[in-house]
């Protein structure tokens, strides 16, 4: 049990957001302009990541080394399509807004990276927990960014009014440029904290 907790923690621990920000960027900036979008995106991402890790881990002995990447891609693409179809059926209004980015989960480097670095070499149960850990890590990062951007950019969180209506929203926060700015501040902050920690050691 302890081993599994450790695998999950590996996904949530502070060093992980840096990784997510470095390689899962496209979707992070695009969907964080509202909490609802971020929520649907994290569901789609978690579903694809966990399901692909399980399948790839189960098939790992049958996959020839030379064509493992095309196979990973087919597996991930299959689950991405399933996620997109489900999202289209049950959350159609949010889905329409971030359609492109849900479809592009298929080329998310985090998923293919975890498939190769973890699922291809570890048993199914371990891969399941790795998927869960990484999904939690990804979800909290994008939800946190989305909450900040929506709060300042629109005065709301997930559509609920938080700031009094007298607050004049800083519209720029939900526009593309602020996506870059917020992530820049976050990366700077995370990297300096990590550096300090290392220096202490």
């Amino acid at each position, binding site marked *: 049990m302890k081993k599994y907790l450790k695998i999950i923690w590996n996904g949530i621990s502070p060093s992980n957001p840096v990784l997510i920000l470095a390689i899962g*960027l496209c979707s992070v900036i695009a969907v964080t302009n509202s909490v609802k979008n971020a929520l649907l995106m994290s569901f789609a991402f978690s579903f694809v990541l966990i399901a692909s890790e399980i399948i790839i881990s189960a098939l790992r002995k049958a996959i020839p080394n030379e064509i493992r990447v095309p196979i990973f891609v087919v597996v991930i693409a299959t689950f991405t*399509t399933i996620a997109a179809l489900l999202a289209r059926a049950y959350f159609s209004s949010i889905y329409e807004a971030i359609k*492109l980015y849900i*479809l592009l989960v298929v080329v998310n*480097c985090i998923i293919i990276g975890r498939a190769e670095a973890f699922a291809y070499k570890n048993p199914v149960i371990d891969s399941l927990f790795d998927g869960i850990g990484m999904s939690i890590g990804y979800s909290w990062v994008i939800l946190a960014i989305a909450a900040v951007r929506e709060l300042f950019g629109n005065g709301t969180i997930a559509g609920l009014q938080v700031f009094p209506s007298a607050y004049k929203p800083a519209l720029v926060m939900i526009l593309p*440029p602020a996506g*870059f700015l917020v992530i*820049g501040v976050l990366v700077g902050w995370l990297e300096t904290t990590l550096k300090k920690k290392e220096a202490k050691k």
Partner: protein
Amino acid sequence: MSYLANLAKIFVASAFVNNIVLLQFLGLCSYIGLTDNMDASIGMGYAVTFVTVVAAAVTWIIDHWILIPYHLQPFLQIVSFILVIGSLVGLVEIYIKKMSPNLYKSMGIYLPLIATNCLILGVTFINSMHNFDFVESIVEATGSALGYFMAMLILAGIRERLRNSELPDFFKGKAIAFMVSGIVALAFMGFQGMIK
């Protein structure tokens, strides 16, 4: 509006108004990762332009000759597109590596990076969402790829300058790259008035 004017509009829209990197956030991994190095940015720019245009052509054919006639588009599009693009890029890479080491050095090494680049796939999905015809798809692909090239050059140039300037520790590395991109994106939003 004549057909040619429509094409010109698609081109301007994809290169400037909806710049694929700065305003649609596609291809960001390589955008942030490679712009530390001017040469790599240029090589990547050429490679992306080449692959995007080829991918747009090939996926248009798959979409209109196989997926749409047999009503498979809603659920087989992602799988077929990525499989075809990924494999084709892989084949071209292997071929160039053997046949022309020089070309491989200047452009080929960037090819694998592109197979899983969200920009390429993103452009093909955008083409399909817009129901573009063949020529329009090619124009959109060219415009988007050149928009990417332009964004790469801008950021690579700025980062080259930044290397020699004194920055607070907080901003060093990727942080400043993001912030600069934010400001450039703000500037690109100014192009919005270009299309009426």
